[in-house]
């Protein structure tokens, strides 16, 4: 029986990952652990002493509030980086996409294999964070099982459109700026560290439009069993639309790049 083309394209990305999986997985586990101990416990001790902290955090401790957001922010960070330099490399440095396009794989299938890989990579990163969260009584819950796909979805909502865009670039000059001016602000203002109700009034609706906020809300809600059906649908549809539209555009930009 034949294997779907995108899966065969994915095999290459995955095999490459297998050469670095040990160090990568260790990092996927250690990084959130250090971060949670430092921020969650350290900063948390200060925050929880505030008078109306519990009320502002909806009855959660700061650790409980912060930790699930890490599922979404980690997915965002990992996915955006996968969607920049490695995409440039596939077209320009190692030229692996060109190698694929010389075979029966179509440009759309080349893009599909990459999208599948991005979903895999985001999942691995999110599972690492979830494993850390499971170590702490305050975040240990069956909701983590639901939060993992939500985190991965957040990742592909970033990687898909960014992949489409990266495929139109001739150089990697703009990538650091993406990190600095898009990813970093989202990280800081996307509701991972504090409720966005704490932002100035005019910023709040902007924060609600960012994909990261939707991902953070989903993950936090899942871990603490506080997801309403309506809001869950809104978040999921929003993120899935970004991923789907990004992937459809990537199919086009890949076809253009590979035919040039």
């Amino acid at each position: 029986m034949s294997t779907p083309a995108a899966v065969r394209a994915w095999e290459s990305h995955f095999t490459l990952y297998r050469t670095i999986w040990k160090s990568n997985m260790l990092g996927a586990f250690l990084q959130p652990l250090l971060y949670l101990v430092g921020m969650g416990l350290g900063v948390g001790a200060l925050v929880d002493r505030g008078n109306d902290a519990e009320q502002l955090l909806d009855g959660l401790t700061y650790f409980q509030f912060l930790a699930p957001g890490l599922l979404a922010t980690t997915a965002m960070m990992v996915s955006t980086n996968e969607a920049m330099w490695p995409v440039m490399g596939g077209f320009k440095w190692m030229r692996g996409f060109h190698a694929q396009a010389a075979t029966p794989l179509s440009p759309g299938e080349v893009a599909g294999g990459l999208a599948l890989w991005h979903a895999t990579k985001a999942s691995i990163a999110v599972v690492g964070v979830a494993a850390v969260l499971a170590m702490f009584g305050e975040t240990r819950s069956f909701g983590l099982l639901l939060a993992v796909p939500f985190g991965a979805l957040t990742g592909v909502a970033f990687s898909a459109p960014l992949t489409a865009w990266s495929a139109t670039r001739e150089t990697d000059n703009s990538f650091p700026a993406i990190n600095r001016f898009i990813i970093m602000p989202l990280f800081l203002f996307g509701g991972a560290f504090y409720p966005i109700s704490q932002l100035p009034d005019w910023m709040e609706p902007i924060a609600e439009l960012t994909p990261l906020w939707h991902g953070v809300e989903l993950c936090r809600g899942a871990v603490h069993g506080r997801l309403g059906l309506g809001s869950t649908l809104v978040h999921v549809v929003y993120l899935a639309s970004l991923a789907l539209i990004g992937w459809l555009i990537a199919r086009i930009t890949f076809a253009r790049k590979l035919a040039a």
Partner: protein
Amino acid sequence: MSSDTVNPLISAQHLVKRFGSFVAVGGIDVEVQRGESFGFLGPNGAGKSSTMRMIGCVSPVTEGRLRIFGLDPATDGKQIRARIGVVPQADQLDEQLTVEDNMVLYGRYFDIPRKECRRRTNELLEFVQLSDRAKSKIEPLSGGMKRRVTIARSLINEPELLLLDEPTTGLDPQARHVLWDRLYRLKQRGVTLVLTTHYMDEAEQLCDRLVVMDQGKIVAMGSPQDLIHQYSPREVLELRYSAGANEARAGELDGIGHRREVLPDRVLIYADDGEAALAEVHARGSHPESALVRRSSLEDVFLRLTGRSLAD
């Protein structure tokens, strides 16, 4: 007629490739027969690679008609690509993976089962004399070895047609001869080879027939020997005068041989008898710093056809 029996294997009529207003290939007609070894010869920018990418069904034809195995790249690209092997100008190997992994993963793109990929990999690595490197990563291999891996990889789908874009550019002479030997064996097995090169010796070694391309056009077509006979007398006398004096001294040589080319570093005199021409040069009291008689080559054909030297 079944596509398997269609001859020619490649047929192009008035094939054009444009990028915006830039004409990369300006309307060429080419036919390649099954089992043939066919070359596109020309300097950088002649349109060779663009032609190859159209034949490889990755770059759409702008104008004209192209058929490979009797199929149309515009509609049957997948089927055509399944039956050809491609050796691109730059190796596109995954440097961090082993030779074996590179081969197997590439085979998977053709939907060849893993087990079969491994079997073919062993066989092909033996063919390119790299069996002992199967478990080595690509990165530490020499340029010649990487090229051989790329060639082995391009054969994983047992292609009927192998496209090689400048297969030996950048390799040392010994590595080039190893490659030529392997390509010659492939040809003996009945694989149709189509290659581009800007090396005359490579074209002479490998090609049954070739076209000379310049600025997107075909300027000559034939076997290497035919082309040499047609466009260049049998021998060439190469004279070197002191630096910068070649131009000035050329006048002393009027009437010797059939034709004269003055290059920055030497003067070429085309003659049926090179030694006789050299005797005449000496008889006229002209004493170049060095003189050499050699047989005409495709290099001379190219110079004759385009007025320019191939070597950059």
